[in-house]
């Protein structure tokens, strides 16, 4: 049985939701989960005060969070296994520094999705994050491995100081993406203007991207068939780093830009 937390009341301040990850809730029944404390502003608040809890932490490690969770930061942060499904919008730092498992957000995500915490070099080191809506600024900052796939757009600065891994935005990667990117892939389903630190290489059908897009579809994103079959422009960069990273931009054939 899946553990489900449905939001009943909005918290008085921002909540650090990082403890609510499947691996820490494993084996707990509903009342034990409801008794857990979360940091809320300078205070603590019990999970049960904010959420209606049903089910129990399961072997399958699946956790469902439902409601408008824009005041909840760090959902799925540092998780290494299991699956979180969120039905609603979330705050900042969702999936920050996660190393495994799956976070599926059916809604929008705030800033620093799957990113590194301040001062940390590497952010996400594994796992998959899928967001059906938009994501905020600096999605995938410092990412080392894994997949962030966004159905809508990412805010400015996606893939900042990225080491490797993949950030996909079907609705388009926002401005100033991939600054300081070493080996990462940024994938934009809509036309965009890469930073001057990127240079156009070629148009091709990237075979690995096809697998990643199919995987994103499997995880619940609505991926257009045209993206799977189509041609993508590859821009290489950041040329002030290794020039081993890439920005792939879907080329629908209507617009040829160099």
């Amino acid at each position, binding site marked *: 049985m899946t553990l489900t937390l449905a939001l009943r009341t909005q918290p008085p301040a921002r909540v650090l939701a990082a403890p609510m990850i499947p691996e820490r809730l494993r084996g707990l029944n509903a009342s034990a989960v409801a008794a857990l404390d979360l940091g809320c502003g300078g205070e603590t608040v019990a999970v049960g005060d904010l959420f209606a809890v049903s089910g129990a932490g399961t072997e399958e490690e699946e956790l469902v969070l439902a409601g408008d969770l824009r005041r909840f930061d760090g959902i799925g942060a540092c998780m290494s296994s299991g699956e979180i499904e969120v039905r609603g919008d979330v705050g900042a730092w969702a999936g920050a520094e996660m190393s495994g498992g799956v976070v599926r957000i059916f809604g929008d995500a705030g800033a620093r999705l799957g990113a590194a915490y301040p001062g940390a070099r590497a952010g996400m080191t594994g796992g998959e994050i899928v967001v059906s809506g938009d994501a905020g600024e600096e999605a995938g900052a410092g990412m080392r491995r894994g997949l962030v796939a966004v159905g809508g757009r990412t805010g400015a600065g996606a893939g900042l100081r990225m080491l490797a891994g*993949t950030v996909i935005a079907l609705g388009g990667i926002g401005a100033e993406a991939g600054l300081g990117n070493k080996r990462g892939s940024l994938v934009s389903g809509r036309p965009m203007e890469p930073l001057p630190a990127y240079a156009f290489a070629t148009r091709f059908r990237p*075979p*690995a991207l*096809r*697998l990643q897009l*199919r995987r994103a579809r*499997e995880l619940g994103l609505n991926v257009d068939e045209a993206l*799977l079959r189509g041609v993508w422009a590859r821009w290489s960069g950041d040329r002030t780093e290794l020039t081993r990273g890439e920005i792939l931009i879907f080329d629908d054939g209507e617009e040829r830009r160099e």
Partner: protein
Amino acid sequence: MSGYRLGSAEVADTFAEAFPMRYTRILITAATDAWALEAARSMTGFATSVIGCKCEAAIERSLTSAETPDGRPGIAVLLFAMDREGVGKRVLERVGQSVMTCPTTACFDGLEGEDKTVPLGASLRYFGDGFQASKVIAGKRFWRIPVMEGEFLVCESVGVGRGVGGGNVVIGAGDEDAALAAALAAVEAMRGAGIALPFPGGIVRSGSKVGSVTSKSMPASTNHQMAPTLRVQVDDTLVPDGVGAMFEIVIDGVSEDAVREAMRRGLHAASGAGATHLTAANFGGKLGQFHFPLSELRDPP
């Protein structure tokens, strides 16, 4: 048990003798069926017998775009060798030379979940001369090797399973044309999931025996007992009266059961397509771990 009659054919009271082998399955995808087939044909070329080719490989079946990891048309190839090391070496050579080189292809592990694996992309990546890149997708690592066309995508490693090699049926008829027609019908019925028929068109016309009568250094030589032209020249012929040509179909399979059922399909198909004599090759039963008596294949598939 004794021989029995099956349709037009007399089935000999004998058995096929087969050996444990290691195998892997490679999924080759490409932009079109035709290119996937080109790669698969090339990869499974010159892979008829471990004796001379170091491995045995064949196309298992074609895959629709719904069955492949990347949603393109593909081909499943089975490759057998005597041990895991052999599978590893041969698959690396063949994917490197025949799949990576072929336009539009990508290469995937068709034997996921096996405990034992051999490296594929993990070694082939060095062809990328340092420009290769990897992606972990749904928990599996792939290598992107930059090539003149764009990129070749190949899985990190492939699973190795325990299979059975050397199952066989031998199909005889009054003349070459009739025997070949019956053998072709058998091949058609035998091909399928879990089965590799490594010889040209699935059929071998030069079956061999272990060693030789006239030389100590030959590892294998012609199966003189089944050569119709030697029928009165040798004392131990196995060619019955009225049989003018015999063909052997060698079967490698992913399990004992897969081989047995393929043999069953083959015998019954051949018996309905003009075969007059059906038998099997063995080495007296001392060499192979697996025995497939034809007497157990009497019931139709």
